[in-house]
């Protein structure tokens, strides 16, 4: 175990610049920091809320100088609390935490987003774009209203394919129903996916024949490797800490 910068939790007193509703229960938060070092795609920040004792983890969805963007979906008390914050509010944050994703040596790559999973992949698209790696995105969600960040992906990707479960926008069907039939898929070197557990399970069954990195979630205790609260079962029969060994794992190496 080598000490890494993300293992020591850096705390911030930051300011909420904008809290914008994107869709049903979906919010985009612009946060301004006083002091912010490097932040890699895949890394996350933990927010203190007034509704829960432990911090809540959110992936970095984008960056502009000292501003970070987070996109959150309200699922419980902590996210509800955050969604109600007004502009100008002070936020107690910790991060960046977790390991950045392994960047590809060559493209094209494809991003596979299920619902709120689009959030961390947007920041990855931005970084890939900066490094001139070609990138496609397949964005899926339940309904049209739940499809988020499509414009942002549009400006960064070679191609953006949309899909909804109910067909209200783009292809009709689950991400994993549509994916195999896409012509673009053949020259893809690496996949990056973020979405619900059921999506990862289906992706595993698809067996795309190329490396697939999965951005995982897990209920966390500390976010810094201290408590073993966030384990995801590995192929080796051991639990791996999503907070410090992840949150991005090679799909092959984990059990679902």
């Amino acid at each position, binding site marked *: *175990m080598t*000490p890494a910068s993300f*293992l*020591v*939790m850096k*705390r911030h007193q930051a300011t909420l610049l904008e809290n914008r509703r994107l869709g049903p229960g979906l919010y985009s938060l612009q946060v301004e920091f006083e002091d912010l070092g490097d932040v890699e795609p895949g890394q996350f920040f933990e927010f*203190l809320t*007034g*509704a*829960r*004792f*432990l*911090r809540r983890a959110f992936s970095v969805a984008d960056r502009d100088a000292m501003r970070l963007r987070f996109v959150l979906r309200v699922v419980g*008390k902590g996210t509800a609390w955050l969604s109600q914050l007004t502009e100008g509010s002070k936020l107690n944050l*910790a991060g960046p935490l977790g390991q950045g994703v392994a960047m590809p040596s060559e493209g094209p790559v494809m991003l596979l987003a299920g619902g709120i999973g689009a959030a961390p992949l947007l920041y990855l698209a931005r970084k890939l774009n900066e490094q001139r790696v070609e990138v496609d995105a397949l964005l899926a969600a339940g309904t049209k209203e739940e499809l988020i960040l499509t414009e942002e992906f549009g400006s960064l990707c070679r191609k953006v394919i949309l899909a909804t479960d109910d067909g209200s926008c783009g292809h009709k069907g689950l991400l994993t129903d549509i994916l195999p039939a896409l012509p673009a898929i053949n020259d893809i070197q690496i996949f990056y996916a973020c979405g619900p557990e059921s999506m990862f399970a289906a992706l595993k069954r698809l067996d795309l024949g190329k490396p697939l990195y999965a951005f995982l979630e*897990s*209920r*966390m*205790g*500390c*976010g*810094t*490797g*201290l*408590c*073993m*609260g*966030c*384990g*995801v*079962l590995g192929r080796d*029969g*051991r*639990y791996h800490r999503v907070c410090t060994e992840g949150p991005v794992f090679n799909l092959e190496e984990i059990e679902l």
Partner: protein
Amino acid sequence: MNLEVFLGKARFRNPLVLASGTFGYGLTHTHVIDRMGAFVTKGITVQERVGNPPPRIWDTAETVINSVGLENVGLKRFKEETLPLIHISTPLYVNLAGVDLDDFRILIKSLRDDERVAGFELNLSCPNVKEGGVALGQSVDRVREVTSLARSLTTKPLWAKLTSNFCDVRQTSKAAADAGADALVLINTLNALVIDIKGRKPFLGAGSGGLSGPAIKPYVLYIVKEVSRQINIPVIASGGVTSGTDVIEYLLAGASLVQLGSINLVDPEAGLRILEELKRYFEQEGISSPAGIIGQLEER
């Protein structure tokens, strides 16, 4: 100002102890550990344990419920791989999580001669494993047996960490004291169940977990006061500390040392803040050492 506390010959630079399971093995955040009175490792079992299935954590505004299930590297790897990596200047207590007398014998014999190990915390109270743990700690006889055995095997400080679940912790405290424990740690987490009403099943992967955090503080404070007045070995408090004020409350109630658990999950540097708060209080009140307030709670 001197924040030192002595339990017998064991010296602690201040009354703050990082609680088992909330600070890993002491491999990171050593700048925090080195300012504390003592550090306790995650519970170590004879065999490596992969721990419980996820989810392992639930929380409310004032509680945490965990079912980590003693995931740990096991005695062999702890001794060979982990211990050599721990570089801290603070007394290292190893939390021993045995299922029976044999386990405790193996664990203590293997670690007692390692000079990096300052002492042992006997985990007689983990609610997150089916065997041993809390079941051991609920029986006055088992507590006496394990503590006696441990005492016969080592002269290093022995802390008995007890439970209040389904038992009279005043009785088990007495048993541990009589059997030669150097201190009592009160208390481990409370049994707790969280239900997923949609799935009609327990939310935590292991079925149930252990409750900790600020909401349990008044309950543990009461236990610490009662036990410390009845039993004449030092009491180490563990339950819901998040501030210097909480530490002082426990000292007044009769605790000699105070553990920080769940708060480390919110902020691994909480110990540093709490230490500053404690110092400020001592300064303001003109108290020269913890001994000046331990057990000084007035009756009503």
